[in-house]
């Protein structure tokens, strides 16, 4: 029964979105969304980044050459390689975890796993809390993840419905 209800809600949300998504997207401030970016924005200073990451690169080279080494073993040796390095893993990237995140899930994780979708989820669930959304953005940027049409459809429909309700 629960599955049936959930499925019905999903279908209703999807249909709602199909009828409202395009309207909402195209009704947005398109001109503001298309400010042309200078070509230089699409470049980065590779040498600067290599310089900024020099300590990490040095540690990385050491770990590559010594496959069994861990942070703990380096700490026990008093290695200078980990002087400014965190001891915890962050395979998906990282961002601040202060405050009370939605559902107790760190915002960066929403962003990491959901990409742009993560932003939207956090945005909606925190009642448009900009700080939380910005954390999700960090996660989004820091991740290799992207968005999903199904969730976007569901959340987009929810948002569109909420927005249209507030308009009238």
């Amino acid at each position, binding site marked *: 029964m629960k599955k049936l209800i959930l499925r019905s809600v999903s279908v209703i949300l999807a249909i709602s979105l199909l009828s409202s998504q395009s309207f909402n*997207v195209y009704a947005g401030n*398109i001109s503001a969304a*298309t400010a042309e970016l200078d070509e230089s924005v699409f470049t980065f200073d590779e040498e600067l980044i290599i310089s900024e990451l020099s300590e990490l690169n040095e540690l990385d080279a050491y*770990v590559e050459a010594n496959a069994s080494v861990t942070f703990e073993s380096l700490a026990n040796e008093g290695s200078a390689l980990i002087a400014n390095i965190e001891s915890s893993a962050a395979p998906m990237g990282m961002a601040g975890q202060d405050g009370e995140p939605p559902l107790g899930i760190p915002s960066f994780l929403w962003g990491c796993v959901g*990409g742009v979708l993560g932003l939207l989820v956090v945005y909606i669930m925190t009642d448009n809390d900009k700080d939380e959304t910005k954390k999700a953005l960090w996660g989004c940027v820091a991740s290799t993840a992207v968005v999903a049409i199904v969730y976007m459809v569901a959340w987009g429909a929810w948002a569109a419905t909420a927005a249209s309700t507030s308009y009238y």
Partner: protein
Amino acid sequence: MSLNTSAQDYFRMSIDFTTKVKPAEGKANLTKGKIYYDKYSKELIYDIHFPANEKWIVQDSRIYKIKNDSIYTTDEIPALNEFTIFHLSLNSSFTYFGLREANFSIAKVEKKDDMVISYWSIPPQMQSIISSIALAKKENSLFSVVMVGPDNNILSKQFFKDYIKIGGFEFPGTIVQIFYDELQHENYQIMEFKNIVLNDTENEENYHYKIERH
């Protein structure tokens, strides 16, 4: 292997990863290990060996963090494994960063030198955070994603380079990410990938982790 093989013919991958994070303030972070992903079971496994040996298992809507075969943290998350770069790359859907699949629309396209840049409209609900997203493609591969804030300030820049290409499959070997805090300080994150293995059927156990529930 035939050069005509499309990405859809690949169903699982493993790859060595290195994540380097250098924030504008605070300590840096180095994480190294191997990622296993099977697009049919949709199980994403991070087998981490630095800073310590541990596994992060993402199954359905939960993430489990495991050390010495014991779960030390578990969290509920959206079931989004099929929308990660791993899944989308195995399905040739990474080129538009998932925006096309998410029903975002292209507002404008322009060509600058060897780049084709597309600007994507943002739903009004999100425009107070992000005013636009621009994607740059080079040689038909995603090269850069730039997110712009409402005051036309750059929020973040991502660059995808050193593509690993095997038949119809491609995956960025390096992802450079620069994101800006409110004082416009630059924070850096680099993800490096190597030693990709596709369709490994001889190490089945690496792609599935049975969570012991007590």
